[in-house]
């Protein structure tokens, strides 16, 4: 079962990566590592609603109580509008969960948002495919 789940996860990752290059103004592979997913739960502390990428900033607290401010790159504002989302849908201070992929250049606490979950459970996926839960092999720590 573990092997099957891993296969599903890999295929999902491949589909995800195949979908991503056309979504950014550089390719996903040039900046982010699809093999390094991280799930973050934290407080939305700031948003730069700019182009060509929106940036979300998330305060994530680890088990020791240390807070790390993550910078999370996202899609252009026009893509949000096409999907019916505006800046007002993202409320500072909300506790949200984000599935992200870490930066390839080693920059700490910097990644690409692949899936954003609002406090009420509403999900936004930034690609035609959603990663299988099995790809979420990392923690925020």
């Amino acid at each position, binding site marked *: 079962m573990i092997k099957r789940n891993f296969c599903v996860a890999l295929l999902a990752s491949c589909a995800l*990566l195949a979908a991503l290059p056309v979504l950014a103004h550089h390719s996903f592979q040039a900046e982010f590592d699809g093999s390094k997913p991280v799930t973050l739960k934290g407080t939305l502390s700031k948003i730069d609603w700019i*182009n060509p990428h929106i940036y979300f900033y998330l305060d994530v607290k680890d088990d020791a109580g240390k807070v790390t401010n993550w910078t999370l790159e996202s899609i252009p504002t026009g893509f949000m509008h096409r999907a019916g989302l505006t800046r007002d849908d993202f409320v500072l201070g909300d506790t949200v969960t984000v599935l992200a992929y870490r930066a390839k250049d080693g920059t700490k606490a910097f990644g690409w948002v692949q899936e954003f979950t609002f406090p009420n459970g509403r999900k936004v996926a930034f690609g035609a495919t959603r990663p299988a839960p099995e790809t979420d092999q990392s923690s925020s720590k």
Partner: protein
Amino acid sequence: MNPGFCWRRWAIAGCGVLCLLAVSARAQVERATVSHGAGAAAEIKAAAAKPTPRTSDGHPDLTGYWDFPQPSVSEHTKDGVIYASPFIPGGNAPGQMQGDPNPPPYKPELVAKVKELEKNQTHADPAFHCKPLGVPRVGPPRQVIQTAKLVAFFYQVDIGEGDQSGIGVRLIPTDNRPHRKDVDPMYFGDSVGHWEGDTLVVDVNHLTEDTWLGISGYFHSSALHVIERYTRKGDTLTYEATVDDPMVLTKPWIMTQQTVRLEEGMVVEQPPCEERDEQHLVNDDHHTRDY
């Protein structure tokens, strides 16, 4: 060796190959088809079959909000998940692009430079660094207001890059005046228009060198001269451009035409474009869009 570990290594390698294939599928392609689904052509055809409204002076009325066929807001939601990208489950899929079927005819001695610029697009493309796409790369306007002697074009580039903060505007006189001579090179250049039958023909000069003709390293010189043709048929608007630059091209290049459809809507002010990625890029892979 742990069999599971070996299996994983092969699986990861296979995934890598698939991903590389996706990246290598870079191309110039017809924008509406790739960005907005295989059904776009049928939607355009149906819109073109409608009557063509005309102004009191008999010209086709270009006034309106124009866009490529897009998934509706409701189509972006599947099984309770909002898919905030042009590619939605069950819809069009990326990674289906082939080589550019219509590249500009560069002088042989400049082909290597074009290839080098394409490879280096994330560093060399002015639009990557938030400069306007310019004419003709910007394509058809998102909104038009037409009067008897002046046509106003408004632009909005959803991808963000190459978009202008606020609202990008072009004013095109159609009163037979000549080009201005007291202007600097501009991203949208100096435009004068006239009607040829049902087509608005716009002559554009005074274009800055600081734009590309397309994403694949298609640079040009300050000698760039563009003749655009805007034709409304029914509820569609077709954009054609003939690009002449004797400094870099062997002959005028006719861009692949683009057709947009009349929609309900209005351009909105765009937030600033701030390039922040270049410092994080670890290779030259870049996007595959056609503009």
